[in-house]
Every structure is written in C-alpha cells, then in structure tokens.
C-alpha cells in the first residue's frame, strides 16, 4: 500500500489503470481522459488496480462506470477484482437492470417549421377545447333554464359572498384612486381652457362608460378568476371531479354553474359600486383641489349621465364577469394532475381573462359608437 494521499490519482501503466488517494465528492475529480484513451486504444481486459485508495464514495463508482462504458465501447472487459470490496458489487447492481429501451428522451432540436407547426397544433387544440367547453356551458345553461341543473343553492351563496362582498375593499380603493386620477388628468388639459368645471363630466363619463367596468373586470380576473382555476384545478388533482362524474352529477352543473351565476349576478352590482366610488374620488379632487363647488360638480356629473350610458357600463361589466368565470372555470376543469399544473391553470386563467376583457371592451365600445 502506498502512503495515504490527499489527491485522487488515476495513472495509466501499460494495460493497467492505477487508482490511489481519496475518492470523495469533496475532493477534486482527477483527469480521466488519459485512462479513457488507454482503454480505447488497447486490447484484452483492462485491469483496474487499487494502489492505495483512501476513503471512497459514489465518486469512485462514477469513475468506474465511466471506464466500464469506455471498455464496452472498445469491446474490452473490465477487471475490478483488485478494487475494494463493494465496488464490483455496486457496479453489478447498477448494471443489473439494463436501461429501458426508448426510456431515454433525447431533446431533438426542432427546426423552425416544426416549431411553428407544433405551436399551431397546440393553439388549434386549445381553440377546440375552448369551443367544446363553451358547448358544455351552453348545455348546462339549458338544463339550468329548464330547472334540471343539479347544484346546491348554498354553493351559489358561498361564491356570491366570496366574489362580491369580500371584493368590496379592493374595488373601493381602486375605484376612488382611478376617479381621482381621471380628475387630475382632465384638469391638466381642461385647465388650459379655463374649463375645469368639465372635469366633473369627464370623471362621470370615464367611470360610467369605461373605467368602472374595466377596473372591476381586472380585479375579478386577478381575484376570482385565479381562485376559480385553482379551486377546480385542485379538485381535478384530488380526483374530486372524477368522483362527481361517476356519481352521474355533471361537474358543469355542480361546479361551473354556481360560479358563473355568482359572477354574472355580482359583477353589475360591483360595477355600480365602482362607478359611484370613482365619481366620489373624482369629486374629492375636483372640490378640494380644483375649487369646483360641490353642487356644481354633481349637477354637471348628473347632467350628462343618461340611462343609456350607465347601461353601456353595466353591459360591459356583465360581459367581463362572464368571461372571467368562463376563463377561470375552463382552465380549472382542464387542469393537469400535478401541483405545477394548478399553478399554470391559475396563471393562464388570469392571462386569458385579461385578454378577453380588453378585446370584449373594444368590441362593445365600437358597437356602442355605431
């Protein structure tokens, strides 16, 4: 036995490979290339000799396995009899079950055409999924109208509570601030014409036609849409949705309908609330900072506010609510069966809600203009 060394060494000597020193995860890894080359170039069996191996762990084994691979490739045999007891047995254990054919998944580099094609296929599948989900929602709605849908009224109340009253705080804060911002922005321009009084009209119009509904939609997308996707996704992971299905209870009726009803009912109410608070926020700025008399401000505000304008905002809000419910429920119901899939479902529920909200907003605005 050689003197105990601090560095692992791999030396080639003729057809033998000499190992010495400690082979630990914490020590440096020796250069294996000369030995690998020696295995490749020689013939007959390769003897690996223990020339004073100190402590060793899996590091030694990975080296031996590397030699083994090289030897197999060169059609030679590896003689390990000289190595510490256990090394040979560990090698045999590692080789006991041959790698499963086809188990190695090689990431092929995809060409541009292939990537585009795959992308198109995924998008197509998603579109089909979306349409078939809409179809199922429609069927479920049909059952609801005929009074045959099966869900618990209690669930509707729970959902209404969580997407309505519990959202009041954040809706209040955001609406007041948006109203105030509208007033500030309006004041900058209108001030140039000494027409600050029209800030009232701007705030009223802006909130009722647009911002009230849009902000409520965005809040619902982040708060409620994500929650729907996560709840239903987790139920999917826990097989709870399978359990409903095998009882013959359509999950669409039992899980999706209460959520859609809750949002369809609560969103218009939230929009009215948001409009009111937004106007109050704008009024605060107008009255306190722009010195518009309170009376004048409110007279101006109500002057331009027709029932039709308010209805526009409500129609938008209602649409947004339904879109958020659809996106959230669809992502949740189509969720995969793992924890990360639930996260993805929540994320994509928010993203698709936002996209759909903005697109729907544009469409409605155009329709109302004509």
């Amino acid at each position, binding site marked *: 036995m050689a003197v105990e060394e601090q560095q692992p060494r791999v030396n080639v000597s003729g057809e033998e490979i000499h190992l010495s020193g400690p082979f630990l995860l914490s020590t440096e890894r020796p250069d294996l290339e000369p030995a690998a080359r020696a295995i490749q170039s020689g013939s007959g069996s390769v003897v690996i000799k223990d020339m004073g191996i100190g402590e060793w762990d899996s590091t030694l084994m990975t080296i031996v396995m590397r030699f083994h691979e090289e030897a197999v490739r060169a059609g030679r045999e590896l003689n390990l009899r000289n190595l510490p007891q256990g090394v040979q047995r560990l090698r045999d254990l590692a080789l006991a079950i041959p790698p499963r054919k086809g188990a190695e998944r090689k990431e092929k580099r995809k060409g541009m055409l292939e990537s585009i094609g795959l992308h198109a296929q995924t998008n197509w599948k998603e579109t089909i999924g979306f349409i078939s989900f809409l179809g199922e929602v429609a069927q479920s709605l049909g059952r609801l109208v005929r009074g045959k849908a099966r869900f618990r009224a209690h669930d509707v109340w729970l959902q209404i509570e969580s997407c309505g009253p519990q959202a009041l705080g954040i809706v209040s804060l955001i609406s007041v601030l948006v109203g105030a911002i509208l007033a500030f922005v309006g004041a900058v321009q209108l001030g140039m014409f000494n027409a600050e009084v029209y800030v009232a009209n701007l705030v009223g119009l802006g909130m009722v036609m647009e911002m009230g509904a849009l902000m409520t939609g965005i809040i619902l997308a982040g708060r409620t849409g994500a929650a729907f996707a996560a709840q239903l996704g987790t139920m999917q992971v826990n097989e*709870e949705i399978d*359990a409903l299905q*095998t009882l*013959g209870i359509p999950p669409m009726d039992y899980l999706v309908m209460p959520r859609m009803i809750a949002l369809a009912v609560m969103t218009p109410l939230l929009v009215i609330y948001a409009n009111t608070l937004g106007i109050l926020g704008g009024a605060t700025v107008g009255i306190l900072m722009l010195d518009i008399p309170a009376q004048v401000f409110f007279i101006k505000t109500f002057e331009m506010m027709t029932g039709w304008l308010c209805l526009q905002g409500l129609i938008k809000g209602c649409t947004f609510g339904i879109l958020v419910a659809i996106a959230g429920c669809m992502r949740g119901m189509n969720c995969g069966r793992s924890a990360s899939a639930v996260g993805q479902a929540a994320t994509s529920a928010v993203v698709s809600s936002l996209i759909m909200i903005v697109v729907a907003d544009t469409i409605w605005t155009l329709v109302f203009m004509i």
Partner: protein
Amino acid sequence: MTDSSPKSPPPLRVEELEMRYGSFLIQSDLTFHINRQDIFIIMGGSGCGKSTLLKHLIGLVRPAKGSVYYGETDYWGGEEASRQAIMQNIGILYQQGALWSSLTLAENVAVPLKEYSDLGAAEIREQASYKLSLVGLAGFDDFYPSEISGGMRKRAALARALALDPEFLFFDEPSAGLDPVSAKLLDDLILELRDTLGATIAIVTHELASIFAIGNNSVFLDAETKTMIAQGDPKHLRDHCPDPKVRTFLHRGEL
C-alpha cells in the same frame, strides 16, 4: 341484493377492450368477466394500465375499442339515461379518497343520497351517520376531510361509495399509503361488505398480502406485451400459472 339464477349473465363483462391515450396504446385484447360477489383483483406491475382499466370499467374513459357490459347492457352502447342508471349502482373508492374538500364527511356521504333518493333531510343525515359508523367513523360527521388522517379519509370515502348501497364497488389501490394494520383493517372491511351487502367488488392493487387475503378472481396485465397474460384465482395463479412473469410477481420476485 337478490340471488341470481345460475343462468343469468355475469354482472360485469369486458370484451376485446382496447385502451389508448391519444395514439399511445396502453392495453388491448382484454376479455374477462367478473362474477357476482367476486372480489376481483386487477393486478400487474407499475405503469401497466391497472388504474386506466378501472377508469374504463367505471365509465370515466371511453374505450378506444371493445365494450364493457353491465349485465346485458353495453355501457357505452346505450343512452345517457342507461349510463346514469349504471353509475348509480357503482360505488368507487379513489386512490386519494377524493372526498369533496369543501364539504363535511356527513355532507360528502349525503351528496349521492340527495341526488338519487327521495329521503328528507333528517333521514339523509341518519343514513350518512350510519354509513360513517359502518366504516368506523361514528361521530366524525361534522369533520372536514382536511381534519382527519389519511386512513380515516379512505374510510370516509368508502362510506360515500356505499351511500346508495351499490351492487358494484371499485377500489383504486385501497391500501396505498396506509400502515399495515390499517391496511389489514380495510381488507377485513372489504370482505365484511362483500358478505353482508352482497356486493361485487373489483380492486386495483399490487399489495400481495391483500391480493391473497381477499381476492378470489383476478386479471394480470402485462406492460410489455400490452395485454392480459393471466386470469383466475390469485392463489392458484401463484403456484400454477404457466407464465413465469405472473408467478414471479406473485412470489415477490423470489422464484
């Protein structure tokens, strides 16, 4: 549960079933039947499609080919109404229990009763308590699934599966994640249910102890050939199956 005349068809029959996920073949050419009051084991190595077969039997997945017959009725051949009727006759214990997490144990058991019976609220509560006490969970009515242990959750899920006194019971790996004593208790419960309720039971499992303790009929799925390679009483297969793969499996690889 009524006794059937010897000539009546087997209550559950699978014919030339082929299972696929997309283009990926899982199993094909499955033909077997389950007799009344059998405890039928679906066994095989990991990843051979046992749970998938179960999903096909309970109608969660539509077969790529072949059919599943309940008595004389082809499950997928009929109308939605006939599927519903069959489903009401099936109780399922999912691998994770799959209790609805927003409902208490009693409410979980009550859902099928509310859907499919004309019982009043008080009677449903009584039924739910009774079913819970059958599985040894008396007094846990108002607990939520997240508040009880894994073994208790499985038993609660069993109570829900029993809610409508189904003729068929399906178990997906009932003893997975349970300690040996709880697993044994669950096995005893399964035997007891078969004897008292007269149910026909199919179980997906690879717990040898359970297989020999309660199984009296079985099918063995093979992952390599992608079809069934044996069927019959597992105790008989252990020693007399011509296929060494099955004997090795049933001997824990010590052949």
